[in-house]
């Protein structure tokens, strides 16, 4: 046993390496440490700033017009707006993305169509969200889609939670597709065949074996997508109306009145409250940014939990 340990140390140590290899290793090590330091700095800075400025009442009071920061309220509408946008957009992106990935990996016929779909999704992933937003204004201002936003006398406003969420789902979609595909592709072929070999159909195999097996990757895709959704600002500014409060439409029942109306999210609030924005109340910007950061950290934690649970189930030896 002792001998084994010594051998291991001898193999892993870098003392015998050539100088250039040792310098390379040192650079990798230093860079890794640098990124850790940057991440820790950002989180720590926002924590300190955020906690000192964050007042729990900010989470429950909407923004209001006022001459001083004491009078201008909090960002409850923005917080709620972020949640609404996140739920709406991911509930479009997740089923669409998973279904697309299943089709691409498990069926993929006709092959030409599958190839086109693949490159289309890659193209969507590459489009800047401000361009998607601009495109969205064209789509959602059309008369046919007037029921998704405020419209009066044939003029469609084209900006609403529906419109913003629909375009935001396109931001998340490629991430969901990519990681679901990765999950499905990581399942050995003989596992599928084992299911077919006891008389199961492809549909049953997908539902009971393949999708449950790729749950961690699907979750990762969804969480990454959610992160992009709640972090996006361009689409919110262009397609959500970027008001400071909810602006529900009058002629619709709850909750459609809110969803068809304009609103705001935390990213938009941070932008407006920052020194560049109209509100110029940086302390509240820090507080809102802190809340945003907490949300993203919570998403990361959730991915971790899913992966840890999957590890308990185990995987196939290769």
């Amino acid at each position, binding site marked *: 046993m002792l001998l084994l340990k010594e051998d291991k140390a*001898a193999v892993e*140590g870098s*003392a*015998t390496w050539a100088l250039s290899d040792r310098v390379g290793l040192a650079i990798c090590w230093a860079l890794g440490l640098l990124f850790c330091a940057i991440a820790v700095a950002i989180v720590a800075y926002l924590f300190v700033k955020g906690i000192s400025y964050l007042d729990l009442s900010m989470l429950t009071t909407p923004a209001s017009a006022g001459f001083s920061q004491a009078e201008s309220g909090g960002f409850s509408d923005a917080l709620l707006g972020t949640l609404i946008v996140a739920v709406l957009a991911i509930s479009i992106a997740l089923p669409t993305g998973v279904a697309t990935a299943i089709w691409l990996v498990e069926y993929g016929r006709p092959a030409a169509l599958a190839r086109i779909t693949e490159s289309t999704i890659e193209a969507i992933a590459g489009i800047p969200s401000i361009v998607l937003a601009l495109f969205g204004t064209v789509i959602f201002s059309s008369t046919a889609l007037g029921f998704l936003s405020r419209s009066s006398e044939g003029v469609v406003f084209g900006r609403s939670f529906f419109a913003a969420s629909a375009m935001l789902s396109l931001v998340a979609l490629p991430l969901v597709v990519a990681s679901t595909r990765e999950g499905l592709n990581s399942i*050995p072929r*003989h*596992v599928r*065949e*084992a*299911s*077919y*070999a*006891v*008389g*199961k*159909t492809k*549909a*049953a195999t997908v*539902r*009971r*074996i393949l999708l*449950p*097996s790729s749950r961690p990757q699907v979750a990762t895709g969804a969480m990454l997508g959610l992160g992009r959704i709640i972090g996006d600002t361009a689409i919110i500014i262009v397609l959500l109306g970027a008001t400071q409060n909810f602006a529900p439409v009058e002629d619709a029942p709850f909750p459609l009145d809110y969803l068809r109306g304009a609103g705001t999210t935390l990213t938009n609030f941070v932008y407006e409250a920052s020194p560049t924005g109209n509100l110029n109340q940086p302390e509240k910007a820090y507080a809102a940014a802190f809340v945003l950061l907490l949300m993203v950290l919570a998403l990361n934690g959730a991915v971790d939990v899913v992966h840890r649970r999957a590890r*308990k*189930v*185990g*995987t*196939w*030896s*290769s």
Partner: protein
Amino acid sequence: MEFLTSPPPPIKRLELEDPPAALEVAPPAQPAGGAAQAPGGFTGARRSIGAPQFSIRRMEIDDVSVAYSDRLAVKGVSLPVRQGEVLSLIGPSGCGKTTLLRSLNRLTELTSTATLTGRILLDDVDIKLIEPTLLRRRVTMVFQQPNPFPMSVFDNIAYVLREQGSRRQRKKTLEPAVHSALARAGLFEEVKDDLDHPALKLSGGQQQRLCIARALAAEPEVLLLDEPCSALDPQSTQVIEDLIVKLRDDVAVVIVTHNLQQAYRIADHVAFMYLGDLVEYNSATALFGSPREQRTQEYVSGAFG
């Protein structure tokens, strides 16, 4: 720090020519003569089974050829598959034995380039006329790599018993069938205390027996095994070999193996394939003891492979 301070110790070679005296008790049904001059060290003592008690023809492979695109993988093979016997397909890599096995439950159809000519009958019905999912419940298969599904031991079996993707049928109603499938695969005693244990956390040998239990849960008539022991250690291999021999009375067993000793130990009939052709089909003792064909003789004596 220094590597390789001394040369590696010499490898101890086991002398296979003279099996220990304890093993020389041949099974009663074994013919006494012939075994001694078997090529490649195959002697009667290494057979772990007696002659079959009965045999019923379940499948009939009739002049079957399988091609991938235009490359012929199996060329006009005819073979019977009988319940009460273990049929072993042997031959070097790429000889078509796995393709032939996979065509017995139409798994070859999953490869879009594969085409099959000839007839395969299951209880006198052409398998082309049997709906694939139904056929694959009657002719089930175990693979080279242990591949339990990523769920509990219980659910692995229950998945087979349930209708396609449904979750209907309660655990309680499925319990007897699950237990009996595990028992037939000789796994029940080891897992009965924790049927909720994740299947992928079992040992390799247990996983493979779970896969056999899964294949048996469908109550098949024919069990196909594609090198089921090649990823396992010798002890697990022996447990599974004993199990296969036990199963031959309930189901017709077809096993593909690379391991000639294994074929000799457990098979009643052996089919030797080479480059897609069926070179020789005979009882295990005859094929290993006195092969008719030159190529069989060379292969079983280790001249190539």
